[in-house]
Each structure stands twice: as C-alpha cells, then as structure tokens.
C-alpha cells in the first residue's frame, strides 16, 4: 500500500507541469567564474617522443584579464595553447575553464563552442573563401549541420562583420579570396575571425609578427580594449608591444613557469634576462 502511494507520488512528481525533465533541460553550460578565475592549469605535462615540452606547469588566469605570455622559442607557449584548445592531449595534469568545465574532457570543437577562441602562430584562414565568408563562418552561434544548412545571415550579423572588417582594415578586400592575401593581411584576417566569434577567452599567438610599427600599435589598442569583457592571453616576442599592453606577464621556460609579475618585475629578473631578454634589455 505504502509503496503504491510512493509510486503515485513519484509519478506525480515526474509529471509536474512546472518542471522540465532533467534530460530535456538544454545542456547549454556557461562557464562559472564565481571565483573570478577563468582558467586553471595545474600540473600539466606534455611530452613528444620523450621530449618534455610542458613540465608540471601551473597557471591561473583571472576573468577579464589581459595576460602576456613570453618565453624563449621552444619554451612551450604554443603547446600550452594546444592543450587548452584540445589539440594536444596532455600526459597528466588538469585544465579547468572556470569552476565547472573540465577542458580535458572536451574536444576542439566543443572547447571552441564553450567560448575559447584561438589565433594560430602561422596564420590559418580558409583560402578558398572570401574574406567576408571567412568572417561569416567565424560568427558566434549554432554550429550544427542542420543549422548550417538553413542558416541565413541576419542584419545584426552582417553589421558585426562590417564592423570587424573595419577594425582589421580589410573593407576593400571583403570579396577577395583569403588565399590571395599577403602574410600580414592574413594575420589581420585571423584576428578578425577571432573578433567575430566573440569568445570568452582569446588565445592569441604572436599577433604582431610581420606587422609594421603602427599596425602593432593598433593591435595593442585592440587587445587592450577587448580585455575586461573578454579574457585575453597573448603570446608575443615583441617586447615593446608587450610593454604597451601588459599588466601581468608570465614567463615560461622549458615547459614551466619561470617568473610571473608586472613587466618591470619580469624585466629585471636575472633568470629572465639570461634566458630570454638578453643583457641590454
């Protein structure tokens, strides 16, 4: 008797009109940054054929921060980004996006949809598409097969693309195939693609390589303006550029963090000078 009433009770609970069944609740998980930290990387190890590219690396990045990552060539900066974006599997360690998302459990596409965008060291754009379409494909939004089939460009999306085009200075090249752009133009386009995607966390690998001084300045402005609303991690070797944007700088060496602090602190660190900056820096 008792059990029967229990069952009916449960059934009623299940059928309640004011709730949605748990498995029907859309699993749109947004990143939880209640502790104000958006990226936790702990004890990361990555090795290739016995070569230790990341060595017990720990790094925490706050929400809305603009973090500069510097370090010698081969220190593991790009590898670090590879781990965060799911391109490279790490041997051990943990990587969390906010409090609630275990990055190691997701693949590249999922991580991108979670709001982590990336610009590669060597510019990669879709060469057979026009600049415009490159940006269109980067827009935030549903990335499913069916949605892509039925998708049309809304007015606001179009405006967004125009806006980005203006920022990256490629308005005149909007219908040009991306494959025909020069190296520097591709750099800009890739930054544009990042902007169009409006990710929560931007990983920018050497954005000003091959840019003129003034362009470098513009890029610096752009990245600074993004910080706050977005979290930005920048890898760059151009010290002037780093100085112009940096608040916190992390120095990587041989796969782990060598120093962290303000630009001034880092610049005067003996170790950093020795392995990275050189004597007269």
């Amino acid at each position: 008797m008792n059990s029967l009433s229990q069952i009916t009770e449960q059934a009623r609970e299940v059928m309640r009109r004011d709730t949605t069944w748990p498995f029907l609740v859309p699993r749109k998980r947004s990143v939880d940054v209640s502790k104000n930290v958006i990226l936790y990387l702990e004890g990361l190890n990555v090795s290739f054929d016995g070569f230790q590219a990341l060595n017990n690396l720990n790094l925490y990045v706050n929400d809305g921060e603009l973090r500069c990552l510097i370090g010698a060539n081969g220190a593991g900066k790009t590898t670090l980004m590879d781990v965060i974006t799911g391109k490279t599997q790490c041997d051990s360690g943990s990587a969390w996006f906010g409090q609630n998302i275990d990055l190691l459990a997701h693949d590249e596409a999922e991580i991108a949809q979670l709001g982590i965008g990336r610009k590669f060291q060597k510019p990669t754009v879709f060469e057979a598409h026009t600049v415009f379409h490159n940006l269109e494909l980067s827009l935030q939004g549903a990335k499913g097969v069916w949605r892509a089939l039925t998708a049309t460009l809304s007015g606001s999306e179009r405006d967004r693309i125009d806006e980005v085009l203006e920022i990256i200075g490629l308005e005149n090249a909007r219908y040009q195939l991306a494959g025909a752009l020069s190296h520097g133009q591709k750099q800009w386009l890739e930054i544009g693609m990042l902007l169009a995607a409006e990710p929560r966390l931007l990983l920018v690998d050497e954005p000003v390589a091959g840019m003129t001084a003034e362009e470098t300045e513009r890029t610096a402005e752009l990245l600074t303006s993004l910080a706050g609303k977005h979290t930005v991690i920048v890898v760059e070797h151009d010290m002037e550029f780093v100085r112009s944007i940096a608040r916190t700088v992390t120095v990587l060496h041989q796969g782990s963090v060598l120093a962290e602090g303000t630009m001034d602190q880092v610049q005067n660190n003996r170790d950093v000078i020795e392995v990275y900056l050189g004597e007269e820096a």
Partner: protein
Amino acid sequence: MIRIEKLNQKYGGTQILWDLDLDIEQGSCTCIMGRNGAGKTTLLKCLMGLLPASDGRILYEGKPIEGSPAQARAKLGIGYVPQGRDIFPLLTVEENLQIGLPARRDGLKKIPERIFELFPVLKDMLHRRGGDLSGGQQQQLAIGRALVIDPKVLILDEPNEGIQPNIVRQIGDVVTTLNEEDGLTVILVEQKLGFARRVGREFRLMQKGTVVAADKMANLNDELIRQYLAV
C-alpha cells in the same frame, strides 16, 4: 652587385610589381621596407627565381639572370631565407643543412662549423625533425641553411618574425658580422624599425609594387616613415 631594371610581375590578372628598379651594391646591407602587401616578398621571390617575372631585367654581377632557374641562382651564390622559414619539416636539422652542400662552389662535403658557432642551438637539435622545432629555432635553422651554400648575397625575408628578443639581437649581430667581416651582401626585408636601423646600412621603401625611396639608413626620417610605412 645586383641591379633590377623595370621589373614587372603579375599573379594571374593582378599586377603586383610595377616597373621596379633596384640597385644593390657589393658588400652593402640593404633594408627593404613597406606596408603589408607592398610586394616585398614578391620582389625577393622574383630575385630568387621562384616567381617568373613578366618582364624586366635582373643583373647579377653584371650578367642577366632573369632567365635562369632558382637552383642556378643558388649556385651563383644567392642565399635565401624565406618569410615563414619554410623548413623541410620531415627532414632532420642535419639533413636540412646538408641539402645545400652540393651547391657550394668549394665542393665542401661537410656542414661548416661556422654555422654551429653562429647558432649553437642547431648543434643540440641536429637529429630532430625540422618541423618539430619551435618557431625561433626554425628561424635560426633557416638562416643557417642559407649560409651552407656559402652565399655572396644573403636575402632575408622578415627573419625576426616570432623570435625571442635575445635571439633577435643575436641574429642582428650575425647579420652584421656576416656583412662586415665576411663581406656578404645582405638584402633584408624588415618591418621593425629598430632592428632595421640597427642592422641596415641602406634602406629602400616600397609602395604598391615600386621602390619609392632609397637612401642611407641614417637618412630614414619620420617624414618618410609617416608617408610610406604608417597605415
């Protein structure tokens, strides 16, 4: 040493270089500058023979070379460090360096020690695949590789892209050494003014596929920079 006259170049229908003239003196260190897309890389590729010129003349030590293929130009002593490095990714560092040996005029069969003196890191990485190196290591490899053929002219296309500061300096020193001590003629494409000023002895400014200004580096003033390098 090198003299380019009325060089024109097209990609399909679009013309990139327009009646370009350029003069490089023996033993000089010339820095070519210009905005993105000005045609710097294109010019260097034409010079190297990797892109066919539509018309115009290229004289090397007084002899026309515009008709000869890239490999012949390498044998004549033009060394090339391309933008983006273009390391042979699946060859080891050693193999990357060995490739150039047959092009030497002195018939040397071994990688010259000089290269490892200039870039010690290459010695450590000798048996790694070129493609696995980090960007900066690759850049050093690319320069080292170009030096293997024992060039008289060294062409460098943005050699500092993505290189850590102390190495940038080192590369600058190397280029200067090569230029001053070994008497190499250097042609350098560079965006970073500081580096250009430090290393270059001459400059050429390019815009829309032609050389618009040429002078001693000391005479590169703000006016010119604003006019041709600012966006």
